[in-house]
Structure formats: structure tokens, C-alpha cells
């Protein structure tokens, strides 16, 4: 029996850029099974990041639906969607976007603090997560004191803080050099092996190659969707 975590049905997203109507996503339907690792690839402007934003609940579709674990996030208001993202979805961005005034451990604790996890418990989990991503010794460093790869590791630890069912990542290796990128690919794969469902948008062939399923997009639609053997 299949165990579907995410269902996107006939998703469309249109917006105006000046006088021009941009149809970024034009009727995409997608199902992601629990524990899967999906890479969405395609040329720039094909709508893959827009699709990821819709899946992650940080953008609203013009039409269609997004269901995660039985909840229609496209129908949620701002407050409800925010609370849903906090508990169910982890985000990793190309530019890391850590809070510069906070230390690594404080950045990881931030979503847990928002979720009202007791202080002692969140400190313990943040330390475990930093150790998990290989930054066990750098708890008290601020983002400016960390390399790009280290910052992205902190961002992954932050994304995992509230044990989300789904982790969405937009070009997580986009700002990293090849060696650091390879380490990141391995870390993302490890997160998936440990049970977290992952949807990643990337131009990075190596990252896409690490996924179990690769979805190709072009001009706002899925043109290819195939499973591949794990490397």
C-alpha cells in the first residue's frame, strides 16, 4: 500500500511582472511518498522553485491544491499555514539565511523556541542536531564566523529542529564549492536515509543523481518523472 505524504493536484501559479502575465506553473500534479527523495530539475525559469514554494506553503497557487499529510495547505490562512510549516516542513535555502545575530545553536533552537519546546529540551536537541550535521564543536559561532558549507549545515540542522515530515531545499549546493557541495549532497542523502522525505530543487547534477526520483520541468510543466537507482 502506498503511503503518500504530499499530493499536488493541477497546480497553477500565475503572477504579473510589469504588464506581462507570467504562468510559472501550468497544471502540475505530483505525488510524493513518505520517505522519498525527489529532485526537481530543469532550466532556469522553468517554474521549479515556484513549484517548491507552493509545495512548501510559502506561496499560494492560482489554482489547484496541495495536500500534505492530509492537510490542504493551499486553503490555510497565513497564521494556520505558518503553524503548519513550523511543525511539518523544514526549509533549506540556497543563501542559508541564518540569523546573523544568533549563534549556531541559537539558530537551530529558533524554530523549537517558536514551537514552545522547553528550553532544556531544545538545547539538547540543538546540540544533537549540530553534532549530526558535523558541527559539534561550533555551537557558539555566529554565521559570520562559519564557512558557507558550515552555514548550510546549520541551516539543515535548523530545518530538522521540529522533526518535520518534509524537508524542502532550494538549490542547497548553489553557493558551495564542489568539495563542500559533495559533502552537502551526502548529508542530505543521510537525512533522507534517516527517514525524512525530501524534495529538492537543483541545477546540480550530482545532487539530482543522489535522489531516488527525478522530476524534469520545462515551461511550467513536468516533462519527465522517473525513478532511479540510489547511487
Amino acid at each position: 500500500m502506498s503511503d503518500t505524504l504530499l499530493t499536488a493536484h493541477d497546480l497553477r501559479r500565475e503572477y504579473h511582472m510589469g504588464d506581462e502575465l507570467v504562468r510559472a506553473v501550468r497544471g502540475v500534479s505530483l505525488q510524493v511518498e513518505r520517505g522519498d527523495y525527489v529532485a526537481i530539475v530543469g532550466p532556469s525559469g522553468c517554474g521549479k522553485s515556484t513549484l517548491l514554494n507552493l509545495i512548501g506553503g510559502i506561496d499560494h497557487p492560482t489554482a489547484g491544491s496541495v495536500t500534505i499529510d492530509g492537510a490542504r495547505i493551499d486553503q490555510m490562512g497565513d497564521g494556520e499555514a505558518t503553524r503548519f510549516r513550523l511543525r511539518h516542513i523544514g526549509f533549506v535555502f540556497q543563501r542559508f539565511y541564518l540569523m546573523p545575530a544568533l549563534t549556531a545553536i541559537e539558530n537551530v533552537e529558533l524554530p523549537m523556541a517558536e514551537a514552545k519546546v522547553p528550553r532544556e529540551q531544545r538545547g539538547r536537541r540543538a546540540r544533537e542536531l549540530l553534532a549530526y550535521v558535523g558541527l559539534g564543536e561550533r555551537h557558539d559561532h555566529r554565521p559570520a564566523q562559519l564557512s558557507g558549507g558550515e552555514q548550510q549545515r546549520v541551516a539543515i540542522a535548523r530545518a530538522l529542529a521540529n522533526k518535520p515530515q518534509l524537508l524542502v531545499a532550494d538549490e542547497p549546493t548553489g553557493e558551495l564549492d564542489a568539495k563542500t557541495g559533495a559533502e552537502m549532497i551526502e548529508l542530505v542523502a543521510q537525512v533522507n536515509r534517516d527517514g525524512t522525505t525530501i524534495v529538492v530543487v537543483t541545477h546540480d547534477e550530482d545532487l539530482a543523481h543522489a535522489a531516488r526520483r527525478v522530476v524534469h520541468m520545462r515551461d511550467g510543466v513536468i516533462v519527465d518523472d522517473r525513478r532511479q537507482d540510489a547511487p
Partner: protein
Amino acid sequence: MLGVAVSAAMLLDMVMLSTGMRVSLRTLLLSRGFQLRLAPKGTLPFDTDATIPDASNVIRVLRTIPEVSTISPVLGGQLHVTVGTRTITATALGVEPSVQGDYEITQGRPSARPNELVASDDFLRATGAKIGDTLSAASGYDPQLRSFTGRRTFLVVGRARFLYMPAEHRAVALPIATLQQMRGAELRDRASLFMIRAREGADVDTVLQHIQAALPAVTAVSIETAMRQVDERMSYFRQLAFILGAVSLAVGFLLVTTLVTVSVNERLGEIVVMRAIGVARSRVVLQIVIEGVAIMFVGAIAGLGLGLVTARYLNSILAAFPGLPAAIDFFVFEPRDAWGALGLLTVAGILAGIYPSWRGASLPIAITLREEAVG
């Protein structure tokens, strides 16, 4: 931040100015515990040269009012002292030395005999006299005869600070009976003013009513009455202070709004990512508002120090106006004023942070991230 500090300093100064003179004058009037004053009918104390006749009878009537504790008659006049070829003229106060409320002895002792006087620093400097010296002084001048009248010899027994006179002012105080005698029939048994102290626990307004009933030919004023009249005369200062204070507050508000707006614009990525990872909009707004308040608070603390320094400087300029009592201050620091200014600034900081923070926290997450990535 400097702008916020300057705005906070100006606000504090204006708050101090709006109440300073009133507080200062009230403190001065109450400094010797006299809550009531009697002046010639229709005047304020020393507002004119008019005097109250039959002073001994006034004292007798006042003593029949049980709530009256102390009566201090004062007669104003002039004293002319010849020093070599020069004549030094000074303000003379005829007082009862044992109950007077016009000066404080800073050196020597109060007058104890009819021919003893105490004098201000400026008088002693001008005449070259010292405590223990003898001076020949006259109380009047006859322009027809071109001669001084009512001449007497005085022993200088003390140096005094005159509470109601400017710091640099030639003044002497001598027994009221002596000054009355020197002025002859013109001022016999007259007084310019009576200062009255009520018994402890007595209701001053009740005492005032009793005096008004017993002495309808004089004007009795309490401190509160005097302050009301001062308020009317000084309303210009309060209005000016209010307007300048409001302008300072508005400038501070706009500065903090600008600072918070710039800060929000520089951190749009951070803000929308906080929203993306599930931080509630209200939490984001709160955090940014706290930053706005922190800016205002730090500026305000710096501004309070700056405000005290500028207030002292401005006070020294205003206090140099001719004729003002040395004890009068235009800017009086009271902790309540500082807290008031700090409270106003904090409220302004909160209001200044709300709009830019709400705007930042309400931006569409996906579009903002895309624009940030492009930018």
C-alpha cells in the same frame, strides 16, 4: 542615534522648562515655611511701592486668628551709603530679624539691635565694608534740598544671601522699626508685606479665609493663589515648551521610523525566512519593535545626559535676566520628568517600529525571496 539623542535631550529640556520655573518658584516661596502673604489691596507682594498702613494693628488682628503661627512684616525701601565721594544705593528690607524669611546668614550673625544690619556680598564689595565695620546710611533723598534724609550709623554684623533678589544685587536688611523711623511720618507703622506661617496641621485655605474676613482692606494670597497668577503670566513658556517638546518627539519618532525601515529593508531575506520556517508574524513584529525601542532607549539615555548639560547651560543664560531672584531656575530636573520623557520616547519607539515591522513581516515570502535572490 545621535539624532535620537538630540531629540531626546530637547524633549527633556522642554519638559523641564514647562514645569521648572513653577517648581522653582514654589520651592522658593515655601523655602522658609511661609504659606501666606498679605499685600496692599489689589496688588501682589512688592508689585508696587504701595504699603499697608497701621501695621501694628494688622499684626494684632492676625494674632487673634488661632491657626496663625508666625507673622513676619517686611518694609521695602532704599539705603544710601556714602563712601568717599560716591554714594552707593542698595535695596533695604526692614524685617523682624527673629522671624524674617527673606535672607539666610552666610557669615556673622543676624541683627540684634536697632542700629545693626546684614548685607549682601555685592553691597559689601561695592562699599568695601566688612563685618564689624560701621557705615553711615540714609533712607531718603530730598531733591529740593539735594540732601539725604533719615541718616543713621549702622554696624555691619552679617553677610546674607537674599532669597528673592538676584545674585548680584546690593541689598541690606535692618530692623523694620529702624527703617520706619528713618523714613519718618511717611512710613510710620507701615509695611509692604506680611509673610504668615500657619500652625502645623492647619488648613491653609481656611486660614486664608479667616484672614480675608478679618482684614478686608488687604489682599491675602496663598502659595496656590500666587502660583495660579504665575501660571497665567508664564503660560507663554509652557506653550513654547509644549510646542518644542512635541516637535522633538515627532523628530525622534521619524528618526526611529527611518532607522527601523532601513534596518527592515536590509534584512528582508532574514525576515521572510523567519516567516517561512514558521515564526509567527506577531513574533517578527515584536522583535523588530523591540529593536526600535532599544534604539530609542539608548538614544534617550544619551539624550538625558545631553539634556541635563544643555539645560544647565540654558538655565545660566536665562537666570542672568535682570531682576530675577537667584534661586529661580527655569530648568528644574525632577526624576518624574526624566521618567516622563523616557516613557514618551518609549511609546514613540514602539509606534515608530510598528509600521515598518508589520510591513516587513507581511511581505509575500516567495516573491521576496525571489527578489532577494535576484538582487
